[in-house]
């Protein structure tokens, strides 16, 4: 019977702590915005700053983009969420199509967020930009050898490439943008070319960069801020970014963004939060993760400023988002893991 005592203690301890945690999280006060967020870096800081400036506190539930979207949909009008925030355009677009979001009618936002980074009817707004571009080791690759994503399908890159897996939404968005520009068949030829070049698939952007640094590959494709993070830890980290496709459409840019839930308890507060994040809050929102602000009035974080300006692909995020499923099908067809 001695098993019962510890078990009982565990139950009591666990229940007490859970209750405390939940009670404290649901303050139930007047001015609270609740956020379902697929984004979870340094958000706490941004939300704290918002609370300090406006007196409205923010509660949040972290999760995967897709999971939170499913949850929002299933909960319907019982959902506690006021704002849905993601790290990729595709899930915002799907949520918009499923009628889970309500339009944001805000002059502040139309001014702060460029047109290609928000939903045409204001159902969601991009809040930060993440650039998915070519990364290379300067000792083994001359920048003059690099040009476009498509060029990496050329046989001279055989055995020298590292890329992210097809289950990753960033890869899916990049391939979706290839489909949007070239059509399915030509995009398929590009991805097949990567596969024929024996691209090494690594399910982790940081590890791709570390593998380039260690000499496992010469060139890779990752989001820019992972490199910024590594350089922040080690200023001599031997990998450099190359802005892809500068001579044609520009480099692929994805967004992290947010929309207001259709059944938000307080859409006004939700709008205020998103407006703040796109203006006064841009710095605390994007700087911690070295992302590029969407608001042209705001300077990029210091570390990435060294990398210079770049042309970005003007494709609306909604367009490549709607090609996401085709992108997966294409990668399956090409044998891209």
């Amino acid at each position, binding site marked *: 019977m001695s098993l019962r005592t510890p078990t009982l203690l565990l139950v009591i301890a666990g229940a007490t702590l859970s209750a405390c945690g939940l009670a404290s999280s*649901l303050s139930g006060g007047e001015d609270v915005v609740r956020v379902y967020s697929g984004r979870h870096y340094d958000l706490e800081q941004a939300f704290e700053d918002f609370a300090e400036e406006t007196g409205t506190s923010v509660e949040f539930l972290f999760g995967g983009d897709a*999971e939170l979207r499913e949850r929002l949909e299933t909960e319907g009008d019982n959902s506690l969420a006021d704002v849905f925030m993601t790290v990729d355009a595709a899930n915002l677009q799907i949520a918009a199509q499923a009628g889970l979001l309500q339009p944001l009618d805000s002059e502040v936002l139309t001014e702060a967020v460029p047109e290609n980074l928000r939903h045409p009817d204001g159902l969601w707004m991009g809040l930060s930009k993440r650039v998915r571009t070519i990364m290379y080791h300067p000792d083994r690759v001359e920048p003059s050898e690099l040009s476009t994503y498509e060029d990496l399908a050329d046989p001279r890159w055989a055995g020298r490439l590292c890329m992210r897996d097809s289950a990753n939404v960033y890869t899916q968005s990049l391939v979706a943008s290839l489909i949007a520009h070239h059509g399915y068949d030509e995009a398929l030829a590009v991805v097949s070319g990567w596969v024929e070049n024996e691209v090494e698939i690594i399910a982790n952007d940081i590890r791709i960069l570390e593998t380039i640094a260690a000499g496992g590959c010469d060139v890779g494709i990752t989001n820019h801020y992972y490199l910024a993070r590594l350089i922040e830890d080690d200023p001599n980290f031997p990998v450099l970014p190359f802005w892809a496709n500068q001579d044609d459409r520009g480099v692929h840019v994805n967004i992290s963004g947010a929309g207001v839930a259709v059944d938000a308890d307080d859409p006004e507060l939700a709008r205020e939060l998103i407006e703040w994040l796109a203006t006064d809050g841009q710095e605390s929102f994007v700087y911690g993760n070295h992302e590029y602000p969407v608001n042209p009035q705001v300077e990029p974080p210091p570390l990435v400023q060294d990398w210079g300006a770049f042309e970005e692909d003007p494709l609306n995020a909604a367009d490549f988002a709607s090609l996401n499923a085709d992108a*997966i099908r294409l990668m399956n067809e090409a044998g891209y893991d």
Partner: protein
Amino acid sequence: MGLLLLPILLVGARSLSPSGEAWSQLWAGPLPGMLWTTLWLLVGVGLGTLVLGAGLAWLVTAYEFPGAGFFGWALVLPLAMPAYILGFVFLAVFDFAGPVQTFLRGVIGSDAWFPDVRSLPGAAIVLSLTLYPYVYVLGRAALRQQVPSSFETARTLGDGRLRAARRVVLPLIRPALAAGLAIVMMETLTDFATVQYFNVDTVSVGVYQVWRGMFNRAVAFELAALVLGVALIVIAAERVLRGGLRFYQRGPGRDFERGRLGGWRAAFATTACGVVLALAVGIPILQLGAWAVGSTAQVEATRIFETLGNSLGIAVASGVACVGLGLLVAGGARLSGSPLALRIRHLATVGYAVPGPVVAMGVLVLIGAATGLISGSPAVTVVVSLLGLVYAYTVRFTAVAYGSVDASMEAITPGVVDAAHTLGSGPGNVLRRVHLPLARTGAAAGMVLVMVDVLKELPIVLLIRPFGLTTTAVWVWELASESRWESAAIPALLIVAVALIPVLVYLRRGKLGEMAAYQTYQPEIETPTPAGVP
């Protein structure tokens, strides 16, 4: 029973809408490859866990060598190591940019060859290292409990140790190994986090990809049904492997007369155990420790206690629910004595063969309906989703508790029950006075296994936890999904430590540590307890 199947049926019903085109594209495209991958992974992990689990169990039970006593219990510890954590650490240590290959390149030169670790064999190794304890524990219990006398008899008749092992021991512990292997297969089938690190696309990965990336819930659930189909084949195979033998409890077994290993054999035995333990527990803990020390992240004590408390609370609640339900189903079926009830009782285990996200989706629908009915304050919503979380775990993990409980009830000889009836006990009385006391050890073992599973579980808690609730596993996920493994190391170590608690409590219980469930395998070919003596 119906409640256990409801979420699964719900997603099943939702998936009934025809999805012909997408489905046929899958068949023409990646699906056959996924099926093969799944099959090969099952074979690899099956062989790996059998060799490790049965081999090590035999080694520590039948032989005396330096450290045998320590390894006897320590080899259970990998049970506390989540595969998704071991998988990540394994790659960080052994891939191209990791310390091992970097060292080799430094010594041999830049063309030092190393096998591709991001591969199916790599995934099979990691899964085997975390899952072999299921086979090990059950196998060792079987060995200790009933084999010694038969083994000695065979030896007396002139068989060598290994020959006796092959001819007598293996057949006797086969059911226990099959039971352990069935658990291993289910875990392998429904894993999708670990295998993705290794670029291994199983059908469960397909479920995730189709659902998350192609936004096609219907096809995702059809794929999940396919996973379930494979699982049912595994369960059927386990029944066949048990060979229709009936197993009854017998008096306590005697200890093995253990062979003493000397010289290089002893060294080999110690090394083998040591290497497995180092790979499965030692290296990951060292690496996580190194990350934790190097991490600059500030960790607040309150966050540690809060997440640990949440994790433990949910684990205990789910454990109680699963064991309670397991007892109810196993006992109820016997009580009613109806052949139909006896047959369908195994349906309680179906949830174990359904990938976590699918169970979670079903429960989410129910939570939505429930909150719609009550439609109250945020606090009510939180309570409902907390209940939903425990409910989802009950659906998913009752099989684990039920297996232990049912097997220990199975071992109660009909003689005892008949005797109780003869002495005038009603069915309820028999259940209370005969079945439940004898199933107690099985229940405790089930409780431990469910708790460890729940503490490590991720997709379900991610999808349906209430607003504001963070568990240790969720904390790891938040950081790991952003590749912040240095910061994730601290909560990852916490999970391992916390999952060790039930394992250690259970080990301390000595007799209980014999994984009650299968202490009782006793083929009828040996003399069962004389019937009719209460």
